[in-house]
């Protein structure tokens, strides 16, 4: 599996961040979170995928750009904040970059904890903060009436509002 990964960062012994072009396997990621981990009874995972519609437009693919270096630092900070708020075990964050087609996986957040509440809450927190703090940008390819155009997505107020509910 390590051959597929372009940039893995161990933020601490129990957290890992990977920014990669390659797809990932939900099953493999869950197995890694569970492997040799008898203390945590809860495993919560989130997977984000490319939708075929956005703002009423028909989307044919996405290109994801990021800011190497800052991305890892921002995600590390988010995980540290989550750890300060909840009693969580292992954390894994994967974000794909480059061109992605409809239905492909974009992002994965996996969190383990002794009991379910901490993993549920921390997972949602990490995803909400990733949406507004981690330097990724999506460019959509839209096909309408057989014409293809590209446009950068605008940030959504709803994402900012959701992240603010944690403060």
């Amino acid at each position, binding site marked *: 599996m390590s051959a597929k990964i372009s940039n893995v960062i161990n933020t601490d012994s129990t957290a890992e961040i990977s920014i990669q072009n390659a797809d990932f396997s939900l099953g493999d990621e869950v197995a890694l979170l569970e492997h040799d981990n008898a203390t945590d009874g809860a495993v919560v995972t989130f997977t*984000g995928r490319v939708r075929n519609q956005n703002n009423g437009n028909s989307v044919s693919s996405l290109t*994801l*750009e*990021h*800011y190497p*270096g*800052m991305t890892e*630092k*921002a995600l590390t900070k988010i995980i540290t904040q989550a750890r300060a708020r909840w009693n969580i075990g292992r954390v894994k964050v994967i*974000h794909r970059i480059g061109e992605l087609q409809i239905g492909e996986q*974009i*992002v994965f957040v996996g969190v383990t904890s002794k009991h379910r509440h901490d993993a549920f809450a921390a997972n949602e927190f990490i*995803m909400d903060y*990733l*949406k*507004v*703090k*981690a*330097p*990724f*940008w*999506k*460019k959509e390819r839209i096909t309408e009436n057989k014409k293809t155009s590209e446009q*950068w*997505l*605008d*940030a959504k107020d709803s994402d900012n509002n959701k992240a603010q509910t944690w403060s």
Partner: protein
Amino acid sequence: MIKVVFFAKLREQLACSELTLNDDNIATIADVKQRLSDKSAQWQQVLNSGSLLSAVNHDMVDSSHPVKSGDEVAFFPPVTGG
């Protein structure tokens, strides 16, 4: 010297992904913006968008944040990952 990098829509609008500035008279992010805005009307317009975000050495900061020689400054639009 100060390294300045640009991302996403901003990079395309400026047709520039990175440049370096000498640090004369630069003390804050606002000073960097001002220096770059002097390049042309296009740069001025793009860099004075209200939603523009900035970072120094990979941490998001506001316009009053100090900048010194050797720093990496970044400008980019609001993020849209996930």
